[in-house]
């Protein structure tokens, strides 16, 4: 193996765009300083190249592209929309399955008292959350500013509602499916807002419409399948339902983590970044399930969900790091040295 071949093999550590831009120059400089045959790169050169490979990717990962931020916002909004739809569905389901009882009110009119949400305001049950569906639609259409305008007030309500019971009221007394005591209610809205704000000045183009639809579809599909699938197929044990919505999702996240890791060479960093968002939120939400922790099985399940979420977060972070090498910074020109000579 020639000196050039050995050095080019070392340059394989660098991101593809970096090799395209500087590879031939680096080989030229290296050969000018190492004229002997069959020279191996020294430890210092190997260390400098390895450091360059890491810092280049970290720099790229530290400046997420517009596509990355857009997909992160989309995935987080999809979760909020799925959660709001689930809450509404649970309430309707509960209303329809509860026999109606009526009592005579002080004003002489009959008042329905049986349904779990009878007498409560839509705000108390978080029905304003359904606006996340509107945010999701706006993101799918590609309207960032309008999505931000709708998301801001909902996020403020969500964060205040999510934090309120945690610091004040006894969360366990809240209706399980309608509870607002949930890390998702605090973390996800902030993720959406931060990503949408940062996306304004980020470099690059929006993800394509097909990518946006796929990201939202996969997220909502995963939530639906993991939250309700096992109960439809395996058990009618409704006591598992409160934690299942998130912990069950955590079970499938490592699979997605392996997929993005295997595909990191071809994937846009936006995909592992979006998965990382999901995994981190799953990790945060894991120890804070709504409802009472009453059985050992319940506790073990939470631990399993959190372990899966942690594994998925690590896999997604590695995949993001590897795929960040595909991000070409703005200052790098389109034409590498070799092509210019050929022209």
């Amino acid at each position: 193996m020639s000196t050039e071949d050995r050095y080019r093999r070392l340059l394989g550590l660098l991101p593809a765009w970096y090799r395209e831009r500087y590879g031939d120059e680096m080989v030229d400089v290296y050969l000018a300083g190492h004229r002997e045959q069959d020279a191996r790169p020294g430890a210092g050169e190997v260390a400098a190249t390895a450091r360059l490979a890491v810092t280049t990717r970290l720099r790229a990962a530290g400046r997420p592209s517009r596509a990355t931020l857009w997909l992160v916002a989309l995935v987080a909004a999809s979760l909020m929309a799925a959660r709001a739809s689930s809450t509404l569905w649970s309430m309707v389901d509960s209303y329809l399955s509860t026999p109606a009882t009526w009592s005579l009110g002080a004003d002489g009119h009959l008042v329905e008292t049986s349904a779990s949400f009878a007498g409560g305001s839509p705000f108390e049950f978080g029905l304003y959350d359904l606006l996340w569906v509107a945010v999701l639609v706006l993101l799918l259409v590609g309207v960032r500013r309008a999505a931000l305008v709708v998301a801001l007030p909902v996020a403020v309500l969500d964060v205040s509602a999510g934090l309120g019971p945690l610091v004040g009221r006894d969360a366990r007394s809240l209706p399980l499916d309608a509870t607002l005591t949930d890390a998702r209610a605090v973390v996800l809205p902030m993720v959406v807002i931060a990503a949408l704000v940062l996306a304004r000045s980020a470099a690059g183009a929006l993800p394509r419409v097909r990518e946006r639809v796929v990201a939202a579809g996969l997220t909502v599909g995963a939530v639906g399948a993991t939250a309700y699938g096992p109960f439809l197929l395996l058990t009618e044990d409704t006591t598992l339902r409160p934690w299942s919505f998130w912990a069950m999702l955590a079970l499938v996240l490592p699979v997605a983590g392996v997929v993005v890791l295997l595909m990191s060479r071809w994937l846009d960093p936006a995909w592992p970044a979006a998965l990382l968002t999901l995994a981190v939120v799953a990790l945060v939400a894991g120890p804070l399930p709504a409802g009472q922790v009453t059985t050992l099985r319940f506790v073990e399940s939470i631990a399993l969900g959190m372990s899966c979420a942690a594994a998925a977060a690590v896999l997604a972070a590695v995949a993001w790091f590897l795929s960040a090498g595909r991000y070409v910074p703005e200052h790098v020109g389109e034409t590498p040295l070799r092509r210019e000579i050929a022209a």
Partner: protein
Amino acid sequence: MARRSLSEQTFLVLTALSAEPLHGYGIVRAASELSGGEVTLRVGTLYGALDRLCADGLVEPDREEIHQGRARRYYRITDTGMAELVRDAGRRAHMADVALERGRASRRVPGLPTGEASA
């Protein structure tokens, strides 16, 4: 916000380019001469610095030439880069002056040139 000072390698790269546009190996040689042979830039270190300097607008590609069948890209320092270099050089010179002055005042370093002689 205080601006970060340049690393020694970055300072040498900018100083090398302040005389004329140079290609990669030219920068390595110039940096070695400037440092009296004490600093030999690794290729990975040089291109890490060049990429950062290009991203920050302190250096930009100048031209390309063919040398022994290989293309060489030359780099030049920008106006912003020259201003940054002068600012950092002034800071380094000030620190060096203070250190020399204290060395002379201490009279503990034999052979240290006096202020008049070095002026």
